[in-house]
């Protein structure tokens, strides 16, 4: 295995483009180093992107927050403006692993690891976050939900690296929230995760909403049919029940060591209801 620490994104993409298929990007390393423990793991190349200028910064522009691919999640929680603007995203990012993991793990890495149970991803998808991708052919931007294509698989082409996650500044009267279910209080992989981001109209009813579900399908998925149940409502009980039912229905989970199909479907609805209420309150809504 070769370890490289390029100083420019061009060098990084070039290294990856030239490498065999067993080449990996190293940012926080909290997934990659776990994989490396496996006796069957083999890597030809690991490209550490932390020495590339700007990768470790959160940049606030007039209309967005640009989160560099090597920003540890702990740093997101320390960024006051980001916390105020996207509390759901930051909470989600801060749920990944332990304090120790927080000091290293990144949202870009969480996304590229392409686990359907990734905590930050449903929140990012609900927030309509964009991934800025650098590759041999230049820069492109795609919606976060289009990055994972299946467990452990992404739409990134050979040589491509996510260099930043971009979150638009939220509109007025909007709010986001993320809730996940784990058996313990910490340290577990999400059994179900739900991100909700909504905006209110002048009447205080829901004008637009995005609902994303984690750990209940092969990828984190946007759930428009669940979102529709809330539009025009003030999250009355009936609307919340409809949301829960839609989320449960949209869930296509598996039975595994972390949870059962029935459990995941049911709890997806419960968490959606609870997350929607938090987002609604953050948006300034009242019932």
């Amino acid at each position, binding site marked *: 295995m070769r370890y490289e620490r390029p100083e420019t994104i061009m060098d990084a993409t070039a290294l990856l483009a030239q490498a065999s298929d067993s080449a990996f990007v190293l940012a926080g390393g909290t997934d990659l180093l776990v994989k490396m*423990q496996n*006796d069957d793991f083999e890597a030809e190349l690991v490209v550490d992107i932390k020495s590339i200028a700007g990768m470790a910064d959160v940049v606030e522009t007039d209309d967005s927050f640009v989160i560099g691919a090597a920003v540890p999640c702990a740093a997101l929680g320390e960024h006051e403006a980001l916390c105020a603007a996207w509390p759901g995203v930051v909470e989600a990012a801060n749920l990944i692993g332990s304090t120790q993991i927080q000091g290293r793990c990144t949202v870009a890495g969480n996304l590229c690891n392409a686990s359907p149970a990734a905590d930050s991803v449903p929140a990012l998808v609900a927030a309509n976050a964009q991934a800025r991708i650098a590759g041999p052919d230049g820069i492109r931007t795609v919606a976060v939900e289009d990055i994972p294509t299946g467990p452990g698989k992404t739409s990134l082409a050979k040589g491509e690296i996510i260099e930043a996650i971009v979150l638009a500044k939220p509109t007025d009267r909007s709010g986001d929230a993320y809730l996940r*279910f784990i*058996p*313990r*209080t*910490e*340290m*577990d*992989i999400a*059994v179900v995760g739900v991100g909700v981001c909504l905006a209110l109209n002048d009447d205080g009813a829901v004008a637009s909403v995005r609902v994303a579900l984690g750990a209940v399908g092969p990828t984190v998925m946007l759930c428009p049919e669940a979102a529709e149940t809330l539009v025009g409502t003030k999250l009355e009980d009936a609307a919340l029940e409809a949301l829960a039912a839609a989320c449960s229905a949209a869930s296509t989970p598996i039975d*595994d*060591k*972390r*949870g*059962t199909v*029935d*459990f995941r479907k*049911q*709890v997806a609805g*419960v968490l959606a209801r609870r997350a929607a209420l938090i987002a609604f309150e953050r948006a300034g809504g009242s019932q």
Partner: protein
Amino acid sequence: MSFDAAYQSQKLKSVGTRPLRPDGVDKVTGRARYGADFNMPGQLVARVLRSPHAHARIVRMDTGAAEALKGVKAVVTAADLPDLTNGDAELFAVLDNCMARTKALYDGHAVAAVAAIDERTAKQALKLIEVEYEILPHVVDVDAAMVADAPILNDELFTGGVDPKPDTPSNVANRAEFGHGDVDAGFAEADFIVERSYKTEQTHQGYIEPHACVASCNPDGTAELWVCTQGHFVFRQNCADLLGLEVSKLRVTSSEIGGGFGGKTHVWAEPVALALSRKAGRPVKLVMSRDEVFRASGPTSATSIDVKIGAKADGKITAAMATLRYSSGPYPGMWAELGAMTSFACYDLENVKTVGFEVIVNRPKVAAYRAPSAPMAAFAVESAIDELAQKLGVNAVELRIKNAAREGTKSSYGPVYGPIGIGPTLEAAQSHPHMSAPLGKNQGRGMACGFWFNFGGQTCSDLNVNADGTVALAVGTVDVGGSRASLSLIAAEELGIDYKDVKAVVADTATLGYNDMTDGSRGTFSSSMATISAARNAIAIMRARAALTWDIPVEDVYWEDGHAKAAGTKYGNLSPLSVRDIAAESGNTGGPIAGHSELVADGAGVSFATHICDVEVDPETGATSIIRYTVIQDAGKAVHPSYVEGQYQGGAAQGIGWALNEEYIYGADGRLQNSGFLDYRIPVCSDLPMIDTQILEIPNPNHPYGVRGVGETSIVPPLAATANAVSNAVGVRMSHIPMSPPRILAALNAERD
């Protein structure tokens, strides 16, 4: 040497205080050396090849390519660990578990091992070992293993304890029955009967330190082993037996131990490390990975238990019965028998019957886990008692008090009890403020009792009085939780000197006589007895030295408050001699001063505890949080109360983890799916509240200071206490441990439907 172990009431100065532990600084500065923290010159790295199959015949193995790899110094298979067990089935199980002979019996079973110059080479070599397996049908579930057409693990195993002796092999290794009276008549008398089946899943001790050792065999037949173990003398015997070494030529040093809880009571890979070293002619370090610890070192049994209890309307239990099925991994143990013995031990029963079935399955060899087998039996029985209280409409504590065993009760496992402590723990629970604290919405309270046999055993210690009057205490029971502090207190008490003037160490096998392991809650109980005895022997010598110094008869010298004093008035102007005074003169009064002790510490006495647990359950997700927890247990005499509390709290935490989230999860392929701390979910810091403790001190009549073992009993009640609390919170009886959120939610859904 004769030693009177009878309890003598006395005012204690050191015992019962809370001084700093002698190994504290080493442990907070990173200097303490655990199993993996030791190296030898020229040391090789060992790795073990493990079966990926739950049950498979080893048809062929070719290690040639691995042996040929540059940097590989030895490859061993079962052929290098020939069977020297001479018909000892228990020892053979240990051997076969260390290295599979003809069949791999579980996912993770060792089949070969290599020693190489570094880890990379060792790993590479493992990949070069070719193993041809014939995959056999497997069975991992305890109930499934008992059905008639289950895959048979061992064609030579016939169920013991049944008449007539069966003529077809079975996975049921043994049937054991206990009890007395006539249960049918008892049930006929009952006004109320509760009857239910329970299941508990397999859990692991979960010590944070993986098994680790450094083995070094020399060409002259001597060998050394550095190892994390609960009993280095036992490991010496195991390894010597399995490798054909002379016991005296194998020196075993116990490292600091990073947790054991029963899991480090027999060898798992140490004979393999020694065999590799013997073959390579170099020291070999073998450290298990966490994955290996879960897959291939001993978890506890999974169980399936039926309980039936009948009572009169006034709450008097008329009959109690339990059928207990315990999985033991691929080799029979005595786990079901222990479950059958302990299940009703808390109660005074006229008619009781328990039957235990020991069942072999394609899972790792079961090892002891803190009061082995008792927690599962207590879960089933104490859940049934709770249900009975509800059915009778009586308070759960009062029902237990009414039926509690007492002095003179014929125990469910046979003997009649002497003075025992269950009553006081129940009465303490009844009057504890926790019992009457208000509960909120979605909250529930549960309580449960627990029983465990403590034991003592063979023990040896040395106490050397140094020239400056300080004392070096060498013990042979491994310190798993602060016993060096406790034993130093004991030595200080007996000699009448300051705690800080005693330094206790755990001696290796070459420098002290044989000691049994630190298990059965015996570490402090038995080594304190040996320490008292050693100190008294040293005092006898010091009295003699004082007599020499004073030139008076030794009969006229007595020992008091750490001093030799001349008796009576005829030596009126002799000022007492302190340990320091006597030690300073020792060179001229006969040389070094030491006290030794070799004894058998029997009479540990049985142990009881009562726990109270409050939970809050989220009815929409089935998530449980423990909001309050209280442990009440008899310590006899708490030598160092902080570490007694620590045992109570630690056992409770392990039991809570077992109750809520810990379990081995197998796939349809018979492979373990959660061999790591990510998905084998032991409690984390944010999962638990502070754990309140109440230490009762009812002196043990068979220990000079009244000490009882305290290490194990605290894990017995929590499964039931937590299950009763959850059941009471959600209004549904939870009968399957762990009560993971999916199980609780499914139970709630079934109730709602």
